[in-house]
């Protein structure tokens, strides 16, 4: 069974600085997808970025980028030029194959990010 682990329950960053959130996962599949979701106090789950496992190039979305290390099963999220609006809970998620419970998402426990002005 696949598992996702986020070992940092809380992180803090100064506004305009860079922060990296860690995520590791375990799987025997070769093709899969990884995601980072942001959950602000409103509780809405917002997609931040996604990575296809077959792509070696790391995904980037504006100030957000990932460091995907397939062999190490690591998928960290880097936030550059942190803004106050980045403060939220961040979840790493692994998407299973469609024949495994409809391609469900398996989530890590989350990392609470605070941004200091």
């Amino acid at each position, binding site marked *: 069974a696949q598992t*996702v682990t986020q070992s940092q329950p809380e992180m803090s960053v100064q506004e305009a600085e860079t922060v990296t959130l860690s995520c590791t996962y375990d799987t025997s599949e070769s093709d*899969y*997808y990884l*995601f980072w*979701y942001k959950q602000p106090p*409103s*509780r*809405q*789950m917002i*997609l931040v970025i*996604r990575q*296809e496992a077959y792509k070696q190039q790391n995904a980037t979305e504006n100030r957000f980028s990932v460091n995907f290390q397939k062999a190490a099963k690591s998928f960290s999220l880097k936030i550059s030029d942190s803004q106050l609006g980045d403060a939220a809970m961040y*979840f790493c*998620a692994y*998407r299973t*194959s*469609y024949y495994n*419970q*409809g*391609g*469900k*998402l398996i*989530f*890590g*426990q*989350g990392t609470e990010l605070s941004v200091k002005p």
Partner: protein
Amino acid sequence: DAGITQSPRHKVTETGTPVTLRCHQTENHRYMYWYRQDPGHGLRLIHYSYGVKDTDKGEVSDGYSVSRSKTEDFLLTLESATSSQTSVYFCAISESPDLGETQYFGPGTRLLVL
């Protein structure tokens, strides 16, 4: 933003009463999911649907049932609510999981079972 609504957004109920949560989408996506979110667990899958009248269990399905009579609606029912079902419930939709399509989430329903 994906067109997903959940109702009710908040509910307080008593142990032993039935509760139905509704998820409605306007995206015509085939796959729909119900997750629950509890502290220390992230989100966990309860049930999912891969088409009208086609549903299956997730990893924490005990005490829950679902129904999907129309593409746009996916109902989650707690037949007899228990305090352990106090949680935040999220609906998600996806066009096609075998293409790795992103799941988009509704705003969530906070349920308190007294």
